[in-house]
Structures are given as structure tokens and as C-alpha cells.
């Protein structure tokens, strides 16, 4: 019922935005003004090579807002830098971010809003389930889509969709390999959210790989979105089973509650998460000392040399430290730039023609991104790069 109402509200909002967009057909100045009115980054109308419009989708509000805002910021920053450096083949980029509140329906609405705005490629959606929904639409429309962080396998199923982050099974497998190879623990408990594709996907691959790594799964516990505040039973079972490490392939919001409840129970195993854990230090009123020693698999750390310049620019622009989502979306925009340069598309081409050109170009480019050096993509949309893990020490990420 909650969704129904939310849908109604979003539909009303989308309708008003669409009305706003339709009045400005073809007039770049007006479109720029519309974009600015919607709170977006850049207005580059009047550039020689024209303007290439990138639609960004992510949860700008809601429980997963830390991801979406980071994606918006990362994309805006990349667009700004690229434009300052002369654009992609002289084409200026313009981005417009729409909120999906981490909801599949709203994400499709956001996509439609962006299509009306004239988007020629999509960076998004930020989270898995919305991304799958949007991928079905972009596939129908033949619109190029690159998701910074939609990690479910199905996200890149259509051939027009690529991603910057690892797929869920790859994260699960990589986590098990990392834990096994670094001998972090041998008795493992898993607490996952069975109501999201993201969490159950990682857990499945993790459990499968754990056997190969000689790890023993002593407790394998689930919760659902409706039940995401009380983890006492799951933690008790993990504690009873003598787990030395608790694997949490979940989003940071639930994880912050788990860490609190575990500390209340004097249960102090190693906690290990994946990219969804990124953002845990931003939870309002969260005692960050609870996250001390928490490890997470993430392709990006502000403490790395390669990300210093980006981190400085990001902090200067937005006042907070970037997380991996910002880095993913920054890389996504650079991938689009590389694809524009490789394929030689022009700003006046329609999105379908651009998409066809990008499908080939994406498999031929290689970028040195923040989330990996020498990233390449295969035709199925998966990136090829090396995994990394960080540990939270004194409230900051430390590369392992």
C-alpha cells in the first residue's frame, strides 16, 4: 500500500516534470534552464560540438540516499572535468540526475522523465532492483545504459547495459576468496536480506565458494525488508555457533543496526561486508566506533594515491568524502567519454544510433579509472578489474 501511494505521488511528479520538459522541445537554452531548475549540474548549451545528455538515476532521498547522492556527485564532477578539458571529441556533456528512492517503479519513472528531457545515455540505476527494471525499459528503447553500482546479475542482461562495479556473485566469490586466502577466520556466519536480489545473490555465491576455501558456514541467517530492525535471534545463533567472522552482504543501514545489537550482546567477531556496506560511516547519530575493524570489499579508497586528486576535488565541491559509488559513477561517465571518442558519435544523433555505436565501442575501450586500472568490458557488460578490500581503522578506510 505504501508503494501504491508512493507510485501515485511519483506519477504526479513525473507528469509535472514531463509537462515542464515538453514545453521546451529543441530549444537548448530553455532546456538548460529546465535542467537548472531541477537542481542539476551543468548547462553547456552553445558548445561547438553540441551537447551530449547523460541521464543519472539513483536514490537521492530514502534509506539508500548515500549511494544515489554519491552517484549524482561523481557524475557531475566527471562531467565538469571533462567539459573543462574540452569535452569528448569537442562534445560537451550535460548531466541530469533523477531520484528513484531505491524503488523499481520510481526508477522507471525517473528514466521516462530523463527520456523526455532528451537523455542520450543513462548512468544508473544506482541500486540493483531499480536497475533491473530500468534495464528492461532501456533495452526496449535501445538506449545505452551503464550502471555504476547495479550489481545483480540481471542488471546487465540486455546487451545495451554495462556496469562499472562487480556483479553480485563476483563479490560473493571474491569475498570468500579474500577471507580464505588471508585466513581471517574459518567459522563464518552469514546474515543476509532475503528480500533483495543484491543480498541473496552475493550470499549464494559466497556460500558456494566458501566450501572451496575451507570455510565452514556455521550459521546462515536471513531477514526481510519488513523485519530489518531486530537481529537479536540471528546474532544469537551466530554467537552460539561460535562464528569468528560474520559476513554481511547487506546495505549499510541494516548493518549499522546489526553492529549496535552485536555490541550490546558483547559479540565481537570480524564483520565483513561488500559494497553495500559503503556509507556506514555516514548514518546519522551512528557511533562510528562500532564500525571499527569492519572490513568491506570495495574497489575504491580515498587513501589510495590514484584517488587523491579526485578526493580533493570532490571534497572541495561537496564537502564530504567520496565513497565508492561516487567513484563508480565518475568512472561510468569517463567510460561514456571514451566510448564517444572511440565510436565518433555526434551530439545530434538519436539515442538508438548512439547505443548501437556504444555497444561495440565499450568492448574496445580501456580506462584507468578510480575503481581499477586498465578496466575493460566484455560484450555481456561485465567489467574486468582486480578486487580490493578495506578495513575501517580510526573511522577511516584503510586499504588492505
Amino acid at each position: 500500500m505504501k508503494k501504491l501511494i508512493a507510485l501515485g505521488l511519483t506519477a504526479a511528479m513525473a507528469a509535472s516534470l514531463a509537462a515542464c520538459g515538453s514545453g521546451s522541445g529543441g530549444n537548448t537554452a530553455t532546456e538548460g534552464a529546465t535542467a537548472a531548475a531541477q537542481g542539476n549540474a551543468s548547462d553547456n548549451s552553445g558548445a561547438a560540438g553540441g551537447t551530449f545528455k547523460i541521464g543519472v538515476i539513483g536514490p537521492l532521498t530514502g534509506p539508500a540516499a548515500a549511494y544515489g547522492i554519491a552517484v549524482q556527485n561523481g557524475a557531475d564532477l566527471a562531467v565538469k572535468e571533462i567539459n573543462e578539458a574540452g569535452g569528448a571529441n569537442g562534445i560537451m556533456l550535460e548531466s541530469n540526475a533523477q531520484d528513484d528512492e531505491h524503488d523499481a517503479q520510481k526508477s522507471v519513472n525517473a528514466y521516462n522523465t530523463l527520456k523526455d528531457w532528451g537523455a542520450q545515455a543513462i548512468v544508473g540505476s544506482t541500486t540493483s532492483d531499480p536497475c533491473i527494471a530500468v534495464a528492461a525499459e532501456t533495452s526496449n528503447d535501445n538506449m545505452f545504459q551503464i550502471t555504476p553500482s547495479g550489481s545483480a546479475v540481471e542488471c546487465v542482461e540486455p546487451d545495451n547495459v554495462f556496469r562499472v562495479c562487480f556483479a553480485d556473485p563476483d563479490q560473493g566469490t571474491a569475498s570468500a576468496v579474500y577471507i580464505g586466502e588471508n585466513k581471517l577466520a574459518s567459522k563464518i556466519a552469514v546474515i543476509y536480506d532475503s528480500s533483495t536480489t543484491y543480498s541473496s545473490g552475493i550470499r549464494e555465491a559466497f556460500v558456494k565458494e566458501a566450501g572451496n576455501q575451507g570455510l565452514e558456514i556455521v550459521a546462515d541467517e536471513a531477514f526481510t525488508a519488513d523485519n530489518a530492525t531486530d537481529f537479536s535471534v540471528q546474532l544469537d545463533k551466530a554467537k552460539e555457533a561460535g562464528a569468528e567472522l560474520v559476513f554481511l552482504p547487506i546495505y549499510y543501514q541494516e548493518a549499522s543496526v546489526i553492529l549496535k545489537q552485536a555490541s550490546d550482546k558483547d559479540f565481537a567477531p570480524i564483520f565483513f561486508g561488500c559494497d553495500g556496506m559503503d556509507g556506514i560511516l555516514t548514518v546519522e547519530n551512528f557511533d562510528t566506533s562500532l564500525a571499527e575493524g569492519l572490513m568491506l570489499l570495495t574497489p575504491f579508497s580515498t587513501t589510495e594515491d590514484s584517488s587523491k586528486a579526485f578526493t580533493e576535488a570532490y571534497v572541495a565541491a561537496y564537502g564530504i568524502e567520496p565513497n565508492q559509488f561516487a567513484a563508480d559513477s565518475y568512472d561510468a561517465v569517463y567510460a561514456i567519454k571514451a566510448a564517444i571518442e572511440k565510436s565518433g558519435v555526434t551530439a545530434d544523433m538519436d539515442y538508438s544510433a548512439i547505443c548501437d555505436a556504444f555497444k561495440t565501442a565499450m568492448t574496445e575501450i580501456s580506462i584507468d579509472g578510480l575503481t581499477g586500472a586498465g578496466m575493460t568490458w566484455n560484450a555481456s557488460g561485465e567489467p574486468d578489474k582486480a578486487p580490493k578490500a578495506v578495513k575501517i581503522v580510526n573511522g577511516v578506510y584503510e586499504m588492505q
Partner: protein
Amino acid sequence: MSFLSYLISGISLGSIYAIIALGYTMVYGIARMLNFAHGDIIMVGGFAIFTMVSTLGMAPMVGIVTAVAVCTLLGVTIEFVAYRPLRDASSLAVLITAIGVSYLLQNLALLIFGSNARQFTSVVTVPGLKLAGGRLSISGETIVTIIVCIVIMAALTTFINKTRIGQAMLAVSEDRGAAALMGINVNRTIAITFAIGSALAAVAGALLCSTYPSLTPYTGSMPGIKAFVAAVFGGIGSIPGALLGGIILGVVENLSKAYISSQLSDAIVFSLLIVILLVRPTGILGKKINEKV
């Protein structure tokens, strides 16, 4: 030992459901309406405490008192603005209005506080207990929740049976028309019921958020629905029924999480409700009500 630990956390969870269920049951018993906004009043209570304690740095007790005051006022206002004009409307109209109020509160909270989750600082300062050499630990929140639940239950029963207002409530719940003829101010009685129910919601909010320290505009909705189930389970309109229903629900939920499946616990809880309603349509302690047609 682990069984005991699951049982105790189940009772603690159940006590919270019971306190919330009291609000549903009282309003239903007296005003014959389902106040679906009740769960969201809990959330408002949570935010009132969060604002006072974590944002403004007041003492937890000040936060709780403020929350009780805010929620009471809110409950009475909602009753006055949204439900009173519909006193003689069909029950469906009132139900829909209640759902509307629920969304209004959620979305107002979204506007004011945003939808990012906040970590709630516990207002309970009672230390936890460690029994059996540390193998069984009972948190301070659990102890306080169970005690508060029992105290509220006893106080409420006394209030209804021993005071004039309580007697007036009983009279209104039996027959509104006859009560009015006997000189009872029906509107005032119903307003007081809402005031008490909402004050309880504030207390439930404090306990809920202290035990499960995550606060969002949707915090109240799922516990609200489960407490409603608890109220129906125990027999809606019955105060001991709310307690019994709440505790059974909490314990079943926790034990099925522990011994059957942590993902199916909700399904099991709701199936149990269906079974109970098939066997006893008015709930465990519910009275059979002959509808006058």
C-alpha cells in the same frame, strides 16, 4: 540456554507489540474504528525523542515526556480533525481516512526529517543482566520494556474499572446512543481514549526505538501492522487480549526465526493468525458481539 534467550527477546518484542496493540484495541473498543495511523504516531514519538535527546541534547526523561505530550496532542488533533466529522459515516470511510492520516504522517516526517535512517540513542539507562556466567544476557531495554508493559496494563485496567472516565468509556463502548442519553459526553470520552492511546504510542515508540535502534519515517508501520494483528489475535477490544496477543506474537515470531527459518517468520506469524481466526473468529479473549442489523 539459547532457547531461554530467544524466549526472553520474544517476550520483549511481544511487550512492545502489546503496548502498541493497546492503542488499537482501546480505540476500537470505544470508538469502533481501526486507527491505522496508530503505528505512525509511534514514529512521531520516536522522532520527538530523537529531536529532544540527540539533536537538542536534553535528558532522556525530558525526551520521553515531550514525546508523550506531542503524541497525545497529535492523537487528539487527528481525532478532532479527521475522525470526529465522520462519526456517523460508514466504517469504511473512517478506515480509509485512517489510512490517509497514516500516509500524511509518514510523508510529513519524510518532508521534515528526510528518509535517511538515524541511529537512535537508547533512552534506557538500566544496565543489562548477565546470567549463567555470561551465557544469557538480558539487555536493560528488555527488562524495562517488560516492566513498563505490565505497569501500563495494570494501570489501564484500574483506570477503566475504577474511574468515572473509565466507566464512561465502557458505557460508550457498550452503546454509544444510550451512553449519550445517560449524559455522557461521547465526543469527549472518545477524545480521551485517543489521548491515552497516543500517549501509549509515544511510550511504545521510546521502547521500540531503544530496542531496535533505527529510526525512519516508516519505523512505525510494520510494528503497527503486527500490533494490529496482535490485537485481533487476542480479541480486539479486550485489554488483556492485547497483552496476550502481543506476547504470543512476539514469542512465536522469535522462536520461528530461531528454529524454523529466519526468513519465514512473518509468514508463520500471519498463518497462525489465520488459523486462530478460523477457530475463534473473535480472537482468543474476544467477546462475541451481536451486531444489530
